[in-house]
């Protein structure tokens, strides 16, 4: 797999190839700033999902469903121009501002920008973007530093690295659980088909 460089990225973004081969990152507010080297800088959206630790003793995905997951997490929208304060050692879900449409012959990985990593910010732990994926990429933001961080919606904090696959691949995406998402999505781990088997397995 070869990583796409700056020129190849620009070419891919501007080419009107058939739908399955088209790379779309929308909008790119500033092409010069956002495409530097082998990657596309992505911005922070203004939607967040925070954990309600004050009344949640634990998370057990075996007992979760679409309704009660919202008892342990809640959505927060921060207007552009205002900030979201990420406290030390906390995890919140956010997403990229940009909506991505991946062609079937590219896979991607999301990395944090080093400027933010130096302040203690980790932006994603599940970094793989599958060929054919469409949607905004959910970020798992964690502040590893000692001091709270002000995060402003719209700032560039992630880098999307794209690589050509050896052959085109159809998007499977675990039953398309997160397909066409437009912001951070609640976890759907409770929908994994093998969860019942392992969580209810009789003890030997």
């Amino acid at each position: 797999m070869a990583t796409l460089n700056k020129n190849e990225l620009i070419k891919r973004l501007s080419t009107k190839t058939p739908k399955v081969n088209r790379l779309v990152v929308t909008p790119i507010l500033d092409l010069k700033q956002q495409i530097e080297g082998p990657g596309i800088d992505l911005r922070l959206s203004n939607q967040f999902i925070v954990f309600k630790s004050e009344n949640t003793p634990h998370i057990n995905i075996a007992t979760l469903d679409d309704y009660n997951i919202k008892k342990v997490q809640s959505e927060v929208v921060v207007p552009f121009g205002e900030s979201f304060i990420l406290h030390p050692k906390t995890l919140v879900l956010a997403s990229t501002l940009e909506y991505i449409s991946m062609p079937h012959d590219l896979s991607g990985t999301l990395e944090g920008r080093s400027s933010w990593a130096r302040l203690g910010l980790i932006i994603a732990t599940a970094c793989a973007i599958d060929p054919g994926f469409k949607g905004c990429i959910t970020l798992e933001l964690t502040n590893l530093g000692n001091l709270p961080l002000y995060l402003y919606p719209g700032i560039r904090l992630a880098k999307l690295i794209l690589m050509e696959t050896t052959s085109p691949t159809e998007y499977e995406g675990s039953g398309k659980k997160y397909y066409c998402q437009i912001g951070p999505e609640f976890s759907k781990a409770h929908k994994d088909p093998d969860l019942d088997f392992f969580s209810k397995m009789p003890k030997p």
Partner: protein
Amino acid sequence: MHTVIGHEIGHFYQQTYFLEILAQDWEARTVNELLPTLSTRYQTLDEQLLQAQEILKIYRGMVREILPDVIGYLLFGPSILFAHYCFSSWMNDKIPPSVQSNYYPPLKMRMRILYENYFQKDVLAIKKSRGGIFKKTILNLDTNLDKYLQIQDDISLLNSNFHSAEALKIFNRTLQDIIKFCKSKIDKNIYKFNPRIINELINRIDDNIPPNEIQAKPIKLGDIFLSGWIYYFHSLDDEIFSNGDNYIIRYDIISKLLLKASNLAFIHTLYKERSGGNIK
């Protein structure tokens, strides 16, 4: 699919209209005009005044909802008519105005006003445009709406009751004033569609991409909403809407794409303006 925002913005202007136009002297004048008719049905002046108030409540209910509809149409084009049309497929479009219905006018009447005063003119302009999904779908919708509105059961319903019939007469007399008022308030922001842009945006929606930009230029809210509705009506017979589950999934995706597009186009426009147009 978010088009209701135009109607809700319209309520701001409707409140202004109530304060500026439907003020006390208007009410006194209108009641005076109603008294000769009322005196043929009700004997005492007290009763006549009481019944006049009931007529005015129905009339105000019509203005309260139809004026925002007009503002919604001026701001975002025929999307609001399509949203009403979609509602009419699963809700009662001929509920008589009364205290129980909070004096809402029948949905069909609201559609009729938009259709006759705006959509028919838009259709004439679209007929002259080049082909594409936009033109084809609009012309189909025009045929369906025309057929639907030819049955004037909403008007018959209003005319079957003395109070709503009188309210309708006042409304018909003042409709053009309401339209002029709306136009004067948002003259510079009146939406004009571009069939070429709508057709390009439809392609994006079909590819599950938000219709927020074309060639790195942010799109107006009216174009975003309209492309969503045209795509929806164009695709209704396709396999993607083939059963209840598919319908809900697909409708949800289109709705999400339009919402995302609205947000992105907003921040994109703002960014371009603040950066002095130096953004490529």
